[in-house]
């Protein structure tokens, strides 16, 4: 047993060292930079005699149940960039001895455009950004509104200020982006607007509120009107001037940021905790972090990404596995195989055509979709509920991944190229593992695969082996789940 412990030592040093750097970083919003360089360096391990192979679980978890660097780098990229790391990015992180590599990676990912791309997709789900039925924002407004939501994420604007902007804006849906909040409702009535406002800002189900509360909320929106202009699908949002003393959405904003402040913060954190940790209820300490940091998204995401809970393994360590989002999975497969996306915009006319290179997380309009995105449960953006995203696994999805002729052909474009094949099978196998799973094959996996390869009859099947390995990898739970 001592020998096995020592084998782990190498991986543990990098990782546990990394964790130690953040052990002092309480969840309560301490400045992570201060912790830099405080890690006590551990002495180099002595050379050991050949040891028995580590168990397969060592690929994913340390004996104490924390995630390995390979798992962590994949997890951080999936959550903060909406994709898996490239081979170079994964290797850099896994091989780095830098004690603060986790912090550095989180900072880098938070600053990157991909963070804004991916997280604005999530906020567009909540804010129901789509052209068509039943929201009917129509294309011009969709693009204007999406751009505004993206800048909220990119510039890390405070959620309370952005909320106020959404609730107090008026004007043209083409020019006054925030005014689209009132238009992005299935029912443009005071009750319909109150329903989405209650859900968006307080996480409340309007239908379950007491009737008095429903009436009170609806009153705030009683004066909001929308009128057409002579421009196609341009609409003006304004307040009915006939009763200037009546309540306004601005008063609802006062209510949110005043008496309902606690609930307002919780509703925001609840979504972030759901996205990153799969939690149904927000953690009180995360709500504190959010409030202390001026209602900003990035400090909250940073704190979660650096927390102990987030660094746990998912086999025994308690980190929840979830099937990867439709858009992210689409981008992963396209990045890996060079497959082309096939977007459809059946309505509205005029049709919008998106180039197949466009990343799926970057589709502004919830009405533009593809067979793949439909199959994997992209949200309809009809109501803004988190439950609109269907991340369950279905037999239809499995059939597609097993049998799609297009996908299999695309895999061949990597594995059948001369440059790729012109190597020892051992190197090919490790390369594929890095590409698909962000880690090398474990010693037992390597042994098993090479034995399998050697046992195949000469001919087609032997030649196809790298392709079959790649096909197998993209059909594994390790590939399809965020873990």
């Amino acid at each position: 047993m001592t020998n096995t412990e020592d084998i782990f030592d190498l991986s543990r040093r990098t990782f546990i060292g990394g964790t130690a750097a953040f052990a002092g970083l309480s969840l309560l919003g301490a400045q992570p930079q201060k912790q830099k360089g405080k890690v006590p360096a551990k002495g180099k391990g002595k050379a050991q005699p050949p040891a028995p192979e580590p168990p397969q679980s060592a690929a994913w978890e340390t004996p104490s149940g924390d995630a390995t660097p390979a798992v962590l780098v994949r997890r951080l990229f999936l959550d903060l960039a909406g994709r898996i790391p490239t081979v170079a990015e994964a290797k850099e992180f896994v091989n780095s001895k830098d004690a603060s590599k986790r912090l550095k990676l989180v900072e880098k990912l938070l600053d990157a455009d991909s963070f804004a791309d991916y997280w604005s997709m999530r906020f567009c789900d909540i804010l129901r950004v789509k052209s068509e039925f039943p929201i009917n924002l129509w294309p011009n407004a969709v693009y204007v509104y999406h751009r505004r939501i993206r800048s909220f994420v990119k510039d890390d604007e405070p959620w309370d200020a952005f909320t106020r902007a959404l609730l107090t804006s008026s004007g043209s849906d083409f020019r006054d982006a925030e005014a689209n909040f009132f238009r992005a409702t299935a029912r443009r009535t005071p009750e319909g607007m109150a329903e989405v406002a209650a859900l968006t800002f307080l996480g409340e189900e309007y239908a379950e509120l007491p009737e008095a509360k429903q009436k009170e909320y609806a009153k705030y929106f009683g004066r909001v009107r929308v009128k057409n202009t002579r421009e196609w699908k341009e609409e003006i949002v304004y307040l009915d001037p006939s009763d200037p003393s009546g309540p306004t959405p601005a008063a609802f904003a006062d209510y949110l940021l005043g008496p309902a402040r606690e609930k307002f913060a919780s509703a925001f954190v609840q979504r972030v905790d759901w996205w990153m940790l799969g939690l149904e209820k927000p953690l009180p300490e995360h709500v504190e972090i959010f409030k202390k940091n001026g209602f900003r998204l990035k400090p909250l995401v940073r704190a979660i990404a650096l927390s102990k809970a987030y660094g746990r393994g998912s086999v025994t360590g308690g980190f929840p596995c979830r099937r990867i989002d439709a858009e992210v999975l689409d981008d992963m497969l396209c990045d890996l195989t060079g497959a082309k996306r096939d977007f459809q915009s059946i309505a509205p006319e005029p049709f919008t055509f998106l180039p197949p290179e466009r990343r799926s997380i970057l589709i502004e309009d919830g009405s533009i979709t593809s067979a793949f995105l439909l199959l994997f449960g992209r949200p309809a953006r009809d109501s803004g509920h988190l439950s609109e995203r269907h991340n369950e696994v279905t037999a239809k999805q499995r059939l597609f991944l097993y049998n799609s002729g297009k996908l299999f052909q695309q895999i061949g474009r990597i594995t059948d190229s001369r440059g790729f094949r012109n190597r020892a099978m051992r190197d090919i196998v490790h390369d594929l593992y890095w590409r698909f799973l962000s880690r090398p094959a474990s010693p037992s996996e390597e042994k098993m695969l090479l034995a399998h390869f050697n046992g195949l009859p000469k001919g087609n099947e032997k030649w196809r082996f790298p392709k079959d390995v790649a096909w197998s990898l993209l059909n594994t739970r390790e590939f399809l789940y965020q873990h």
Partner: protein
Amino acid sequence: MSAKSVIELWLWGGPSQLETFDPKPNASPDYNNGLKAIDTVVPGMQVHEWWPNLAKCTNLCSFIRSMTHPHFGHETATYLMQTGRNPGGGDVYPAIGAVVAMMKSKTYSGDLPPFVILTGAKGRFSEVGFLGDQYAPLVTGGNPNTQKFVVDGFVPPGGLSQKEIERRFDLLSRIDNFGKPEAFGEFIETGKKARHVIEGGAARTFDLSQETNEMRDRYGRTWIGQSLLAARRLVEFGVPYITVNMSGWDSHKRHFETMKQRTADTDKAIAALLCDLHERKLLDQTILWVSGEFGRTTKVDRDPPWNGGRNHYPRCFSALVAGGGFRGGCVVGESDETASKVVKRPVSPVDFLGSIYELCGIDPDGPMPNNVGKKLTILPPESSEGRLREIYA
């Protein structure tokens, strides 16, 4: 006994009631363009002259000539005809196909999904609405009227032999070693199901080459003919709901040229399906319904840019129902002399869909499961005119 399967032939765009099931041979050419109606095997039940094959089997189906609703736009009309709901509420309801699929999956255990669409989705709204992904339709893609109709995902690509497929799955099972399998129940279960489809007979359901040439000719070597033949094979397999989405009925311009060509293929295909289901003793347990989202304006628009066209018209249009507890040889409702107005027994989409649900053994007033946390019913209450009980068998 309630119906086991439903075939929905959706005539996307809105076919004209005059050139289908409600011909008006005595109206002026401004309305009927000088075209005639023909007698059918059921005395007094005429059909437009472009439906000679259907005329031979009207004893198997019934016409509704008094469909009516207020929506002139494709999206809103389709939503109403598919869900029985007016658009604009906060909730997006599922189409009837997803609801039947959900309710029937308690008793259906086939390897194919309970809701199959040939060959493309409607697209303008999500057919599954707020129901879970498991009731989303399998959209086949492809064209049944080709030498080899392949539904992507059902047959392993690359011409692998059975042995090779097995060895590849063996390789996958060794590579797929992550975590504790018992923590991935859904993944393991769906994987088993998918393999069962690949290795079992389900994939062959789509293989039309299993049919004789005579049978394929009988349905017509057209997209609609072979799609309805595929639908019949799916019924035999037990799939609860099959939608055939046929586009091309939105004939604002060149209406009569378009209709003549569309009806020729469709007439042959529907007649073949009705007789085939009847001969196989499947018609009693299978509902066929044929409709679009609305009908078309009745006075021919001869001015440019229409040059002989018909536009959207929901106030009075026609539908066809057959089998599964609907009697044949009946006509429900009546329109005025130009098919512009319902004069007898209006049928709303809610009552129309309610009848199909009821014959499927699904209570239209029963609760609709949903993930939006609300108490919803499958349909709004039926109208005072009521469901189509006069043609229940």
